[in-house]
Each structure stands twice: as structure tokens, then as C-alpha cells.
């Protein structure tokens, strides 16, 4: 029993019931450029070169005002690599001047001390640095030798500038076994917020199915993360599972405990309290979702109009159990979970509503001596935020499984 709770400050991007009822896009994730100085094997947006028609400075600053008008509390700048956009500090300053928090999610390759200092002067609140594995594992995944050491150096630069530093880590076949040791490294480097997500089968990741986790591996992932969450908390680290990690099972409470043991996953937030923006002004209900979920472009419509009225933005809040299929349709948690992360489900299965990456589901299959295995049946096309397709094979648990 844990009565002594560490004094954690909840990020402002956490939403409450009032935010949901009023559909406030509390957390806006904005890809301000697709240009990138890394070459990540798992990049969902296939970043590298700028998009053809990225927003101008004037358009971007106007968009900041429109975001603030909707009541957003947090704007996360991503890319590609956000600092490669020449006016990125103007955007940071504008977000802060509009009363919103601004943080940067970065690969950190060229996040020098001078760059961080300038960002701090512009008002940047926090930096999340992507670290996927240790040393050579990270370097291979990120496509640049030495990028792990550069990411650690970036962490130190952020700390030295007095900003909050967090880490984002992808969980896949290459990084899973390194998570415990990685946690020690990032705590020593000053990390207090560690966000983990399962690598989604989108973009570059869809081209590397060997990298992806299998559904039955949720039997390993969830207990491990719950253990790391408890151990991390004892050392001042807040472990934050992404929405594609879960669901339920006996570790849900430990994993999602944010000063309350009774917090549990409550379904996808896309289009309710989360918004994604692409560098050309495309608005989506979640930053990871593919183009069918785009609600419009701010060059054609005001942001409020897209957010409140665009049909593709409404799929989540109108979703019911009737929209589920496969195992999820009859799952015990169907009404609450609604098939978990839409992004993950759609990237794997070609449509939302059935998500095999689920601990409860894996436990259920195992209780019957079975497991689910994903087999790729269709390649991705090679565009940003594209995906292939997988089929689920249900098979007996092998004798030496574990």
C-alpha cells in the first residue's frame, strides 16, 4: 500500500471531466516542420525533408492565436525536428505570450547549449528528448552514429538552462530489454518525466515489422512497466504510459496511478482533448493519425470551425461498442476502452475498432492456452503517416514461450 505519495506536479496537458464535456483541446501537438536531422527507422511521419507547403511565419503565428482561443493549455512542438524551422523561437514566444505552456519534443542531435538558452529566453517550459535504447541500440534506431551521446548531452544542456527535462522512449523488439537500465541512466541525467509508447506500425516502422512487438509480448511489457513505475517513483521519476499502452489487467492501477489508485485507461482522447497539427496546416484529432482522420486545413477554414464541425474530428466522441469488431466487440472492457488507441489499431488493422496490443486480451487468450500473432499482409505505400496491414493469427502458446 502506498500512502506516502511523492509530490508530483501534474502536467497541464492532463485533462479533466470539464475539459471533456467542453471539448477543450487541452493538449495540442504541432509538427511545425517535417525537416529532420535524424533518420529514425520507426518514424511514423517519414520525416526528413520539409513538407511541400509548410505554414509561413505569419500563418503560424496566426494559428497560435486560434489555438489559444479554443482554450488549449499546452502546445507541444514536434517535427521532424522543430528547431530546424528558422522561426521556431518566434512560435515559442507567441505560444507563451498567449498564456499557454510550450514544450519541445526533440531527438536532441543538435540541441546545443546556445540553442536551449535561446529557447529558454523565448519562454520554452520543458523539453522531452527521445531516447530509444542505450548506445548502439539508440544510434541504429535513430539512424545516426553518436546520437545517443548527443541526446544525453542535450539533456544536460536542458537541465543547465533550468528547464524541465523529460524523456520519450519507444518500446519495440530492440528496446524492450534495455528499459530497466535506461531508466537508471535517464534518472542520473536529471529526467523526472518518462513517457513510453509502443512503436506503432506506421511510416518507417511499417517497413520494419521485425521491430514491432507482438500482442503476446504485452504479458511482459505491462508487468515490467508497472514495476518500473513504482521503482521510478521512489527515485523522483514520473513514468507516463502513452495511450497505446495497456489495457487493464492486474497492473493497470500501478501503471496509471497519478496520485489515485483508481485511475484507469478511459479510452482514446482524439478530438476531445487532444489535437494534432501538421506542418502544412492540416488539422487532425491526434498527431499520429493518418490522413483519413484529417478534419481540414487552416488555410481553408478557421481552426474553431474545423475543431467543432469537421466530421472526421468527431469519430471518437460518437464511437460506441457497435463500432468495434473482432475481439474488442465482446470484450469485458468494451464500453470503457473502445479498443484503446485508435492510431495503433488503425495502423495495424487498416481500421479502428479492434486493437490486439492489449494486456487484458493477451491474458484472456493465455488462459485458454492461446496467443495472438501479427503477420504483415500488405506493405505501406511510402508516404508520411502511411501504414500497411496485418492479420491476426491465433495459435497455441508454444511450449517454450516466455
Amino acid at each position, binding site marked *: *500500500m502506498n*500512502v*506516502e505519495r511523492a509530490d508530483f506536479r501534474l502536467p497541464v496537458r492532463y485533462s479533466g*471531466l470539464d*475539459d*471533456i*464535456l*467542453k*471539448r477543450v483541446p487541452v493538449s495540442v501537438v504541432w509538427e511545425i516542420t517535417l525537416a529532420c536531422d535524424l533518420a529514425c527507422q520507426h518514424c511514423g511521419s517519414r520525416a526528413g525533408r520539409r513538407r511541400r507547403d509548410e505554414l509561413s511565419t505569419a500563418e503560424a503565428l496566426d494559428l497560435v492565436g486560434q489555438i489559444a482561443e479554443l482554450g488549449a493549455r499546452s502546445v507541444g512542438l514536434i517535427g521532424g525536428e522543430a528547431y530546424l524551422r528558422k522561426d521556431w523561437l518566434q512560435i515559442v514566444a507567441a505560444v507563451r505570450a498567449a498564456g499557454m505552456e510550450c514544450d519541445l519534443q526533440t531527438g536532441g542531435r543538435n540541441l546545443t547549449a546556445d540553442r536551449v538558452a535561446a529557447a529558454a529566453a523565448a519562454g520554452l517550459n520543458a523539453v522531452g528528448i527521445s531516447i530509444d535504447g542505450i548506445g548502439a541500440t539508440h544510434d541504429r534506431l535513430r539512424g545516426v552514429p553518436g546520437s545517443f551521446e548527443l541526446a544525453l548531452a542535450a539533456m544536460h544542456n536542458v537541465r543547465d538552462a533550468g528547464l524541465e527535462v523529460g524523456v520519450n522512449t519507444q518500446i519495440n523488439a530492440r528496446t524492450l530489454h534495455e528499459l530497466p537500465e535506461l531508466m537508471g541512466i535517464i534518472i542520473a541525467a536529471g529526467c523526472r518525466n518518462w513517457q513510453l509508447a509502443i512503436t506503432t506500425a506506421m511510416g518507417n516502422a511499417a517497413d520494419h515489422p521485425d521491430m514491432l512487438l507482438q500482442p503476446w509480448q504485452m504479458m511482459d511489457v505491462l508487468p515490467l512497466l508497472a514495476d518500473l513505475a513504482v521503482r521510478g517513483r521512489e527515485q523522483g521519476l514520473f513514468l507516463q504510459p502513452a495511450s497505446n499502452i495497456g489495457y*487493464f*489487467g*492486474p*497492473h*493497470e*492501477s*500501478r501503471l496509471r496511478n497519478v496520485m489515485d*489508485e*483508481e485511475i*484507469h485507461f*478511459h*479510452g482514446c482522447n482524439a*478530438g*476531445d*482533448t487532444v489535437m494534432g497539427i501538421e506542418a502544412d496546416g492540416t488539422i487532425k484529432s491526434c498527431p499520429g493519425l493518418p490522413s483519413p482522420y484529417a478534419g481540414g486545413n487552416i488555410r481553408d477554414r478557421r481552426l474553431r470551425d474545423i*475543431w*467543432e464541425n469537421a466530421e472526421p474530428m*468527431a469519430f*471518437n*466522441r*460518437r*464511437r460506441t461498442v457497435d463500432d468495434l469488431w473482432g475481439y474488442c466487440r465482446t470484450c*469485458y*472492457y468494451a*464500453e*470503457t476502452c473502445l479498443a484503446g488507441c485508435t492510431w495503433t489499431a488503425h495502423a495495424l488493422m487498416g481500421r479502428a475498432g479492434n486493437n490486439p496490443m492489449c494486456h487484458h486480451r493477451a491474458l484472456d487468450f493465455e488462459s485458454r492456452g492461446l496467443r495472438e500473432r501479427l503477420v504483415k499482409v500488405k506493405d505501406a505505400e511510402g508516404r508520411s503517416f502511411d501504414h500497411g496491414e496485418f492479420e491476426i493469427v491465433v495459435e497455441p502458446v508454444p511450449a517454450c514461450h516466455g
Partner: protein
Amino acid sequence: MAEPGRIPVPLRLCRGCRRFVRIENEACDFCGADLAALEAAHAGDVAALHAAMDALRAAMAAHAAPLPEREGSGVGES
């Protein structure tokens, strides 16, 4: 006015097996435990722990308070 968002369907925690179950349940669908009884036991444990922590804090505060002066006493008195 914007259409409201989807209100999450809440669940309750079984303090026995730590699974989440339907909020209207009296028994856990996974381990069969009496949810109310487990909740009452948990509340009792939390209250006892709080009481112990309060007692510890009081004892530590008393230990830290300056000692009253005594005639003939001095530092290093064994």
C-alpha cells in the same frame, strides 16, 4: 457550441486482485471477492497508517524540541 466530448465509462478497482470491474458490481468478476468488504478493509488500513504516521511525526517533533534546563547539568553528562 461544440458538441461535448465522450464521457468515459468509469470502473472500480477490486482491492483483492487489482483488476478493474464494472462500477455497479458487488462482487469482482475476476476473483469473486466482496468489493465493499475489501474497500472497507482498505480504508481501515489507510486510517491506521495515517495514525501511525501522525504519531511518528509527533514523536519526532518532541525529540527535536529543546530540553528543559536542569541544575548542575552540563554538556557531556553521562
